[in-house]
C-alpha cells in the first residue's frame, strides 16, 4: 500500500490515516502513535479471528518470560479479551530455567506483570521438574548446545505448567522475525519434518494442550515500538548462554534482510507455509516416548534422552576422546559437549 503523506518543511510526514498528526512509525503505511496502537491491536484481533485461535470460555496460559514479546502479548490479549469479549480466562505461565543473572531478573518482571495486568501467575522450574538448573547443566556440558537442552526442557516445562493450570491452550509470543528465523534454521539444517510444522499458527492440535502464536505475522520492530510508546514494563537482556547459539546467524541474516527489504520476513514465512514435501521423502512418524509418554518420533523423547545423559554424567569435561596435548605441550581444552546420543545422530535428524 502506498504511504499517503504530505512532507512538511522539517521532513516530518503526516499520518496517512488521520492526515493530521505527525507520523511516528513507518510501516507499509505511515502512522501516528495513537493510530499505530489501534492498527496494531486490530491486526492481532483479525489474526485471532481468522485463524480461530480461541473459543469462548477457554482457559489460556500465556507463556511469559518477562521479555518484550510475552509482555506485549499479555497486555494486548487481556485488552482484546476485554474489548471484544473473547470470554477467556487468562493466566501467565513462566518457566524458571535457573539461569542466574538472567532468569531471576526477568521473573521479577513477570511478577510485576501479574500485578499490572491482573493475570494470575504460575512459575514452573527446571529444578523441580528435572532436578537440574541450566547453570548446572552448562557446568556439565560446556558452552555448546545449551539452547538444545534448554529448548527441549522448556517445551515440556510449558506443557507441565499448562497441565497444572488446567488450561485449554498455551499462547506464546513468537513473532514474525522468530518464525522466519526458524524457517531458515530448518532449511539450513535440512530438518524437513520441522520445516513442515514450524509455520503453523496452531501446533499440537492432536495433543493435550495446543499452542498458538498470535504474533505470527507481527514484526518484532512493531512489538518493541508498541511496548516503548505504551511504556510497558519488560526485561531486555540476552540470555548469557545464547551468543553461541546457531540461531544467532539466522537472526543476523534476517535483520540484514529486513533493512533492505522489510517484506522479506513475511515472504519467508509464506515460503515456509507453502513448502510441499516430495512424496518420496521419508518422514519420521510421531509416536510416544516409552519413558514418559510425551510425543516423540523416537523410542525416547529428546528430553528423556538428554536427562539420561545428564544423570549418567557425560564424558567428564577435560577427560575423553578429544582430550590431548597440542604442540605447545599445553592441555587441549576443547570439550566434547555432546551427549553420546546426539553424536550418533546424523546432521538434520535431531528430533526436538
Amino acid at each position, binding site marked *: 500500500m502506498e504511504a499517503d503523506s504530505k512532507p512538511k518543511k522539517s*521532513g516530518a510526514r503526516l499520518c496517512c490515516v488521520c492526515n493530521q498528526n*505527525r507520523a511516528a512509525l513507518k510501516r507499509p503505511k505511515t502512522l501516528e502513535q495513537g493510530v499505530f496502537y489501534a492498527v496494531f491491536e486490530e491486526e492481532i484481533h483479525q489474526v485471532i479471528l481468522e485463524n480461530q485461535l480461541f473459543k469462548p470460555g477457554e482457559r489460556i496460559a500465556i507463556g511469559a518470560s518477562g521479555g518484550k514479546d510475552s509482555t506485549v502479548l499479555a497486555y494486548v490479549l487481556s485488552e482484546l479479551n476485554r474489548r471484544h469479549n473473547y470470554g477467556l480466562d487468562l493466566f501467565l505461565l513462566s518457566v524458571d530455567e535457573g539461569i542466574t543473572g538472567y532468569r531471576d531478573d526477568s521473573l521479577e518482571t513477570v511478577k510485576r506483570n501479574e500485578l499490572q495486568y491482573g493475570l494470575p501467575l504460575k512459575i514452573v522450574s527446571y529444578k523441580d521438574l528435572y532436578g537440574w538448573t541450566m547453570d548446572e547443566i552448562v557446568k556439565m556440558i560446556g558452552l555448546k548446545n545449551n539452547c538444545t537442552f534448554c529448548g527441549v526442557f522448556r517445551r515440556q516445562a510449558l506443557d507441565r505448567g499448562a497441565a497444572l493450570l488446567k488450561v485449554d491452550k498455551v499462547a506464546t509470543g513468537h513473532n514474525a522475525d522468530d518464525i522466519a528465523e526458524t524457517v531458515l534454521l530448518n532449511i539450513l539444517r535440512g530438518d524437513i519434518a520441522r520445516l513442515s510444522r514450524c509455520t503453523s499458527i496452531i501446533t499440537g492440535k492432536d495433543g493435550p494442550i495446543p499452542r498458538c502464536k498470535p504474533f505470527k505475522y507481527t514484526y518484532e520492530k512493531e512489538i*518493541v515500538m508498541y511496548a516503548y510508546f505504551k511504556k510497558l514494563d519488560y526485561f531486555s*537482556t540476552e540470555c548469557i548462554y*545464547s551468543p553461541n547459539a546457531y540461531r544467532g546467524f539466522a*537472526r543476523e541474516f534476517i*535483520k540484514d534482510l529486513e533493512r533492505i527489504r522489510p517484506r522479506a520476513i513475511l515472504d519467508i514465512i509464506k515460503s515456509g507455509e507453502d513448502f510441499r514435501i516430495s512424496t518420496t521423502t521419508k518422514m519420521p512418524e510421531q509416536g510416544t516416548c516409552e519413558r514418559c509418554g510425551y510425543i516423540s518420533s523416537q523410542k525416547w523423547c529428546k528430553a528423556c534422552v538428554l536427562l539420561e545423559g545428564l544423570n549418567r554424567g557425560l564424558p567428564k569435561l577435560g577427560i575423553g576422546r578429544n582430550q590431548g596435548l597440542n604442540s605447545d605441550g599445553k592441555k587441549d581444552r576443547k570439550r566434547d559437549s555432546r551427549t553420546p546420543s546426539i553424536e550418533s545422530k546424523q546432521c538434520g535428524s535431531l528430533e526436538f
Partner: protein
Amino acid sequence: MHLTLEFGGGLELLCKSVKFHNVNVDLPKGADKLSMRDLLAWVRTNLIKERPEMFMKGESVRPGVLVLVNDCDWELSGQLDTTLEEKDVVVFISTLHGG
C-alpha cells in the same frame, strides 16, 4: 548542540548501565548541521564503553536497533541523513534479546 539520548533494550549496558545521557555534541568542522551520521560516530567514540559491534555496524546502527528521533522512527526522516536540532531527543532501542 544539546541533545538527550536514551538507550534501551539492553544497550544501556554498553554505556555503563546509564540509560539517559544529556550531551553536548560539537558540529563537525565546517558543517552548519548535525546529522544522525555524525551523532552515531560521536556516540561510538564518546559513550559506548564496550562491545561497539553491539551498537553499530559500519556507519549505521546494528540491524535490530531501532532509532527514534523525537519519538518518531528515523526511517521517516531519512535515517542517517536525518538532521538534528537543539534539544532533540534520540532513543536507541535494541530488539535483539529474548521475548
